[in-house]
């Protein structure tokens, strides 16, 4: 089982976390076009390699954290976003 490096709690089993998908900032509602929203909501890059992801440490500190995970090797490190 993978461990994720929680910046608050230290390494913990991945089963303590909930996956919130790749980091993708929410567009501003007003200027955003329908296409932009469509992309934001429904389209994922799904690359083979490092992806910055958001995880929620639901069984730990209950913070949303950012983790860079290589989707090929499952190697993880702290992400760049807060």
């Amino acid at each position, binding site marked *: 089982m993978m461990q994720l490096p929680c910046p*608050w709690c*230290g390494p913990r089993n991945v089963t303590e976390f909930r996956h919130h998908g790749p980091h993708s900032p929410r567009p501003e509602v*007003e200027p955003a076009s329908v296409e932009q929203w469509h992309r934001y909501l429904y389209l994922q890059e799904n690359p083979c390699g490092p992806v910055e992801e958001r995880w*929620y440490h639901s069984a730990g500190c209950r*913070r949303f954290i950012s983790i860079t995970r290589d989707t090929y090797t*499952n190697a993880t490190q702290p992400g760049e976003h807060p």
Partner: protein
Amino acid sequence: MTSTQRTGQQPRRLPPQPGEVIDRDRTLQFLWNGRRLSGYEGDSIISALAAAGEQVFSRSFKYHRLRGILSATMHDPHCMLQVDDEPNVRAAHRLLREGMGVTSQNTWPSLHLDLKAVTQLGGRFLAPGFYYKTFMWPRRLWPTYEKVLRQFVHAGRVDQSARGERYEKRYAHTDVLVAGGGPAGMAAALAAAQAGARVMLVEEEHQLGGHLRWANSAGAAELADQVRKAEGIHVLTNATVAARYDGNWCAVIQREPAPGEPERILKTRTGSLVVAAGLIERPYIFSGNDLPGVMLSSAARRLIALHAVAPGERAVVLTANPEGDAAVAHLERAGIEVARVVDARTGGNVRRARGRKTLQQVELTDGTRIEADLLVTATGWTAPTALLNMSGAAPEYVPQAARFLSSAQPQAGVYSTGGLVGDGDAEQLHQHGAAVGIQAAQHALRKRRAAVAATPTGVPATENESPSSPGPVAPLPVPEHPELFRSTTHGMVDFSEDVTSRDLESAVREGYESSELVKRYTTVTMGPTQGKFELVNALAVIASTTGKTIAETGATTWRPMYTSVTLGALAGRNYDPVRYSELQPWHASHGAVPLVAGQWIRPEHYGDPVAEVKAVRRGVGIIDVTPIGKLDLRGPDVPKLLNQLYVNKWSRLAIGRVRYGVMCAEDGVVFDDGVTARLGEEHYVMSTTSSGAGAVWEWVEEWLQTMHPDWQVHVTPVTTAYTSINVAGPHSRRLVSRLTEGVDLSAEEFGYMRVRTGRVAGVDESILWRIGFTGELSYEIHVPASYGLHVWEALLSAGEDLGVTPFGVEAQRVLRLEKGHLIVGQDTDGLTKAYSAGLDWAVKLDKPDFAGKPELVWQHEQGSGHRLVAIQPVDPGVVPEEAAQVLFPTGRIGGRITSSRYSPTLNRSICLGQVERALSDPGTVLDIRLADGRIVQGTVMPQLAHVDPEGTRLNNDTGPEAPERWADPVARGSVPAPGPKTSIAGWEVSTEQSMAPLTLADVTPLVKISVRAAPDGVTADRMPAAFGQARPWGDRLLVVGSGPGEWMVLAEPGERAAALNELSEILQDAEELTSIVDLTHGRALFQLSGESAAELLAAVCAIDLADDMVPDGAALRTNVAGVVTDLIRHDEEGGRRRYLLHCERSSGRYLHATLLDAGRSHGVAETGYPASGSVIRR
């Protein structure tokens, strides 16, 4: 056989051998196919049988050929026997016990007269793919085929009447896990422990030593002794590292770990994994290679050296390596005649083995025939690289060595040593193992130091400094070995599946050229041995048939598990949390039919839901609605948050008001609904659906943490801090007013959609909401949970003359359907956007932003999607099933019924349904297709409410009555108090005191005050404990840093005011948002004391509780038996280990019962409330 002692019972037993593992002073009696035999303590079942002169133990899978010893190890495919009621026992591994009843499997009517063996004659017709090809057509005959084939299944008997067995799982943590206790593995373990690492050494067999046990038994004993004496090595024999997953998470299978427990899985997280699995000797392919009497050289040497059993009387030895040569010497030393040594290195070879039942004659390729009852082969090795393959390595076939070798380290933290990497004498193996052990230890200790440093509870250890640079590991020499796989004849390749070299050739000729395809077609390597003996031989045969090299042919994949594991061990103990309201025991004892709703157990009804509906419509009813989600929201920016998450507007909700709101996900789909009340200037309580409580909390946190960290809002879940009771019906005001003090309940003062706080049945800080899911005048009373039963019973007693009736979830569903209130998830699904749920009135597209707005703008413009409508069947007696289809006149499906019941109020059936827009106009008559195919008509109603669409029932203006006097409220802990009881500060607690070495006490009565602030602000600086710490504060309080910017202040019962005083003193003029919420009633708190407390927790909690990770005074939150639990290490005065555990109160009963059950083997005892002051004080 002149030199051997032959007793009558054990004719093949040899005189004492150096290093033998049997105890000749302890004779054990057992039954073999009904015959009484004897063996010695330390014998395996097979060695005892062999000593008794038995040579044949089973019949093979497909051809029912007689089979004897092949490897004499756990993996020996011919030695799977039935022992008492247990089938498929690895009898060459399982130790003999007094009184065992052992029988052969797969034989009928007996081992020696087997009727199924006729298939041998037809062997030519059982070609590969026979089953696939023969039994497919005609298809209708398959059931008949199945019955016939079942008779041929290779397995034992399962005793259907056997009683259940107990299987546990445990979590384990180590720095270095060594798989294999041979010379290299032991050297690695010793070196790693020396370097300061915690080591777990796992050996499959019953003794350490590996092949040294027969090659150099004194050397083996000396090394094993060093290992046992070394500090920091945890030795597990009769155990296997069966799997390795991401992050060095390994499955260690322990066989017979405790009396009555057949197997156990240790879910082991290790810093480094050292694979020292050794080598498995490879059989040679020739005609008759499966005859009893043909065995591997290592099998013969094992029998002689470990069990002092003569493997035969007159032997031929086929040798291609020094181990084979040593076997010759070994046999001779044991007094067994070696008739011929056939040296493959100088061109000698065996053509076939002959014998009627067992080996009688060996024919060499030069035509010589030798009478013999034992043929020993030493033609090479299979490297069991499974754990390395699971780690991502691809060991390569090295022709020079005639085996696979692991050259490169697959990834950081995974190492290999011993026969997997090369050959060497004992000294070379030891040196290599030790060098790898130091590397592994250094990697693991680096990792551990980093983990300790990254963990807020961690305390870096000063010792355990590993020695400096280990230097490079000198590689082991690559052995020279002839490539010997098959003689000039065909023979068995896969002994457990009866696949021959001829079968493999024919599969290749049929076009299956890839080894993976040949495997699936012929089932080679798919039997119980899983490739351990046959993989390389199979590859060699495939390669020679296809004309490729073995390296080009490539190995098939090694997958977890490496060894056979019982289903019981895999399943283990099931941790499936359930949640109960405080009132559930009352419901259960009053005839409630339990309803499983998510994790909750709720009363569906108390016997007559129709009567319950009528009681609410005519008088007054009470229902336990505790599972309704409740979030306490504080801060100046709560309105912004509400505006963002709900589709409707929240800016002008006055204090004392309640509003209904609907939440949509970003795709516009209805996600949750509920009412939110404003209790104070910056204080709100949001309610959610029962099933959505967790998701809404996460959703709120997501918005606050990731999108608007600037908003000043604190969220505290208080779902089970309150017992929630809905009092509904025309008499509800009269009933509630009899119990309530400090709130004017008159219709004018406390109108619909208002909230008040006051005292109910003597319980302060109760919250009353006037809302109406049922459509009746109703009050939802939220009382601090510990008083739930007190208030429930007070309502029943005060309302006796009013006919107060408890009602369940079913009656509530009928009542709300009559009123036309939707249930999210019932009347909506994962595609239902707000406009399809009849929520047009709620959606405010003129708000600048809210979750789901762009999608709802889109839906609004398109006018797409279904509409939620009320439907009444034309025939009032027909109640369509929920999910019945709604049809257009053409028969096309145009929607579905989402809710449907018979209304006792209207005496007719009523429904809600989602239909296409074209069918949604009031008055439309629809077709509804019932489950039995009948089509009935229904009419679309003008509004969703079937009963009282004008809402006149809410205008009920009955006057309130004067409050009565109530007995002092009693607070109760989160589990029933055992034994005699007393009262402490208004809490009913048990006085029972257990003296057991490990005890579990319910200490829920402790005051628990939650404090929230910024993780790095003034409050954080002033609080006495940082995140991850539990610190005493004076001698009456314990402050726990339970999260970033989150604290829990614990105090003895009755010390709430003192705790709040202390807090307000240090937190005054902090000038940042700080929330203080009393969660005394919202959390179940337990105390687990005793030295073995951490061992108990290892069964239910994955955290490494070692002293450097979780020392005294540490606090963390994690999963315990599937429940999110705060764990605080707070050792007792005198240093006895103690943990405090707290979880949501509704999970308390489950957690308590689970800890008691998991601790059975540790002798855990339930105890009453501890001596006053002892929980906080140390």
